[in-house]
């Protein structure tokens, strides 16, 4: 799916977080890296209309995130850093079912789709468990299942492995790598971007490097080294 950012700027009060960003994103795997506070999470949130630009326009599959927010969100799934903030229902199966509520499926069909989604992520045995009793890795898998059960065309992930241990981080990364959907991932884990088609480096609200992982991450490392 083609995502276009056209002269996008954004400010939170007096703080300018993005400045004049022009991008066309249509590669299957796109990574975004940058320091804390660089604007990369804001950039990611623009892709499904969670944050609207103060200036400029964002179009996702031809839809404007400002005027067609609902349609954009049906096509773009968003995975947050902290799954605890993303899980809204008390039990595992209920949270996945929550994502499907708009389809108004008959109960049997709803249960069947939820069961398939949980099975895909190895969560079937936890179906009736309260979400607060899951481990961090299981919670992030549940968050992924709840997003992917709606079969979005684009999956945007904001540091999905930051709060996970190495084993769970690798597991989540492997699942994301195997998705058929287009993925845009914000991350600090640079090795997770091996095999990506394109990496953007965001620094002080601007895209300062944009290219293959080798090129962009090389430029990012040079930036870090320059800071001492």
């Amino acid at each position: 799916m083609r995502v276009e950012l056209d002269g996008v700027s954004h400010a939170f009060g007096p703080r300018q977080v993005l400045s004049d960003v022009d991008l066309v994103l249509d590669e299957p795997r796109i990574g975004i890296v940058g320091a804390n506070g660089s604007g990369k999470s804001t950039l990611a949130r623009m892709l499904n209309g969670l944050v609207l630009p103060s200036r400029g326009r964002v179009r996702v599959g031809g839809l404007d995130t400002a005027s067609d927010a609902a349609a954009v969100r049906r096509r773009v799934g968003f995975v947050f850093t902290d799954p605890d903030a993303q899980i809204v229902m008390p039990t595992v199966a209920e949270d996945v079912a929550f994502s499907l509520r708009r389809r108004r499926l008959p109960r049997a069909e709803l249960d069947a789709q939820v069961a398939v989604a949980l099975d895909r992520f190895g969560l079937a045995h936890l179906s009736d468990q309260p979400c607060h009793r899951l481990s961090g890795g299981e919670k992030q898998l549940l968050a992924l299942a709840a997003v992917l059960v709606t079969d979005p065309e684009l999956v945007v992930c904001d540091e999905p492995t930051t709060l996970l241990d190495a084993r769970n981080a690798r597991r989540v990364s492997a699942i994301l790598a195997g998705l058929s959907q287009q993925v845009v991932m914000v991350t600090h884990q640079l090795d997770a971007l091996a095999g990506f088609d394109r990496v953007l480096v965001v620094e002080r609200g601007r895209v300062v490097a944009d290219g293959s992982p080798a090129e962009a991450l090389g430029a990012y490392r040079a930036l870090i080294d320059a800071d001492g």
Partner: protein
Amino acid sequence: MLGLYVPGNSLVHRAPAGLKLALLAVGLLALGLWPSAAGLLAALAVLVLLTAVSRVGARAVLGQLRPVLPVLALIGLVQLWLSGWRSAGTVTGTLAAGVAAAGLVTLTTRTQDLLDAVVRATGPLRVVGVDPERLALLLALTVRSIPVVAELAAEVRQARVARGAQRSVRAFAVPLLIRTVRHADRLGEALAARGVDD
């Protein structure tokens, strides 16, 4: 409702959530309006029977009473002092039976089914501007947020101890409030991302 559901296929599990809630409400109302030892014994007999039929186990049902035991004990003592042992026994027994019965409903009913029952029951309120789906979501979020806030409180308590301020109320309340508000903010963003307002 804190995700205590015990999966099963008993008659009690299969009974519609709305029916269970309605029977619970009628039973509690009857016991409250006409308190008597005979009524209490009858209610306890029904509760024991339904617990046996549900196969969730007496321990699970009695476990629902644990958090309210101090309150029950306090009420019992006050009643004993004001009205004598017979009244104290009836009042505390009625309250305990009510909590256990509500626990049995929780243990045998999925949260989603309870919420669906709430949506159906509040459907007629649409004419006065109430959105039943939003009401059910509000209840679900309340249920979901209790363990999250409890976890935040535990983290703040540990941080307070680690920094040697275990007696400071402010060192507990302020960070807990800030973290809770931040969680609410993130939750709102997640709800938007999942299309709640669309």
